[in-house]
């Protein structure tokens, strides 16, 4: 039952709470990453991480079971297809091994540094972003494991890493990773066969958007897109070069040439992401 309340005191309460909210918005807006509010945020995340880990440990197998059931009819077909693909890939790998040796020799001659720094940190995804306006994941590794702000995060095998995103917040035993599908994410990228550069931004659950591609570039369907090395004022970019971002899904022409863009389907499957690897950020030299 609704109890009768004195309206004036309720109104005063709302005014106070709204004022506090506005004060927090203003403070946070001015302070950004540092300051007491960021500290409070870290504390809240540190407290939540073990709980999220526990819930995910319990619910993930159940979720996987139901996902498996739902996909049962298509599994036989998929099995066939994967067997054929596997054979083709084995042949490809053999060829790649040869190319890699050749590539390594050439790189050594050119004095290029190894792009994947040693000691990557493997992590389990324990939670996803809370809101419909944030595409992020929480992982079970934090500063105690050597994870630091801005480090790139990948998934897949060590030989064929697929870009996932970068670390945006670190606590002792957990860290938040902004996914490349988040509209706030931007990645410098290069089209493999066209050798054209562009900027990839997220569009949420839709395919990624690659802009600033030279107009008139011939782009093929399914063309792989990789991260591009770049430097701004001597500072290297967030992502090491050569990480697979995705494949071209379509090009969007328009009457205005400057508004053309390429859509890229991410290589990593963000809906079922469970394991990731955090790479050490490259230091400027």
């Amino acid at each position, binding site marked *: 039952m*609704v*109890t009768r*309340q004195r309206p004036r*005191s*309720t109104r005063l*309460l*709302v005014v106070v*709470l*709204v004022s*506090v*909210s*506005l*004060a*927090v*918005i*203003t*403070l*946070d*807006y001015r302070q950004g990453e540092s300051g007491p*509010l960021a500290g*409070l*945020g870290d504390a*809240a*995340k540190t407290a*939540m991480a073990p*709980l*999220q880990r526990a*819930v*995910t440990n319990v*619910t993930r197998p159940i*979720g996987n079971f139901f996902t498996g059931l739902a996909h049962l009819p298509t599994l036989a077909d998929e099995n066939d297809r994967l067997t054929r693909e596997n054979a083709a890939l084995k042949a490809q790998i053999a060829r790649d091994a040869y190319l890699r040796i050749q590539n390594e020799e050439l790189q050594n001659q050119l004095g290029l540094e190894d792009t994947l720094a040693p000691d990557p940190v493997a992590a389990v995804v*324990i*939670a*996803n*972003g*809370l*809101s*419909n*306006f*944030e595409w*992020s994941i*929480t992982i079970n590794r934090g500063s105690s494991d050597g994870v630091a702000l801005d480090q790139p995060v990948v998934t897949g095998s060590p030989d064929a890493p697929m870009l996932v995103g970068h670390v*945006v*917040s670190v606590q002792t035993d957990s860290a*938040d990773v*902004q996914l490349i599908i988040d*509209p*706030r994410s931007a990645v410098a990228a290069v089209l493999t066969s066209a050798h054209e550069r562009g900027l990839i931004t997220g*569009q*949420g*659950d839709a395919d990624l958007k690659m802009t600033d591609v030279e107009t008139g570039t011939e782009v093929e369907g399914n063309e792989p897109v990789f991260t591009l090395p770049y430097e701004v004022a001597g500072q290297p970019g967030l992502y090491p070069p050569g990480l697979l971002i995705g494949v071209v899904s379509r090009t969007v022409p328009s009457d205005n040439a400057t508004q053309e863009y390429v859509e890229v389907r991410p290589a990593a499957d963000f*809906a079922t992401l469970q394991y990731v690897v955090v790479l050490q950020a490259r230091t400027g030299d």
Partner: protein
Amino acid sequence: MLRRVLSITAVVITALLLQSTVFADLKLLGVRPELMYLVTIVIAFIEGPNEGAIVGFAGGMAQDFLLNQPKGITALTLTLVGYAAGLSRQYIVSASPLLPMILVAVGTAAGIAFYQVVAFLLGQLDETFTYGLRVTLLTAAYNAVLTPILFPVLRRVTEGSRPTRVVRF
């Protein structure tokens, strides 16, 4: 009183946990529900504008601190949503069992829209207008669908912890 604070804190934490784990995989047309909006509106519906505003503020602030976005916007939104939902309950005379669902749907849609307007004014909204509209409508629908399941639970929690009234002479 302490028992009440503890039980509502437990509700808020559970909602945040479910939102970031289970419901991240249970998406409806690519959109997850907004449990904190649902909790705020239902508690405001049962307990009135005072509690609605307090739970909205606390839950919103907790959610803000777990996001990597400007803090305080969800708290501001949910304070107003809780207050408005509690207030509207006092003026609507209807015993329809659909009323909580309708209130949750309208409240969620209004709240999500308000959130986006504030984020836009702060220059923090990077999503397209169509995505925003889709999220507004789908979260409202999703929350409304979840209301019949969560309403009895929340009513039990709030009424079970309500302080017994002591009449003094």
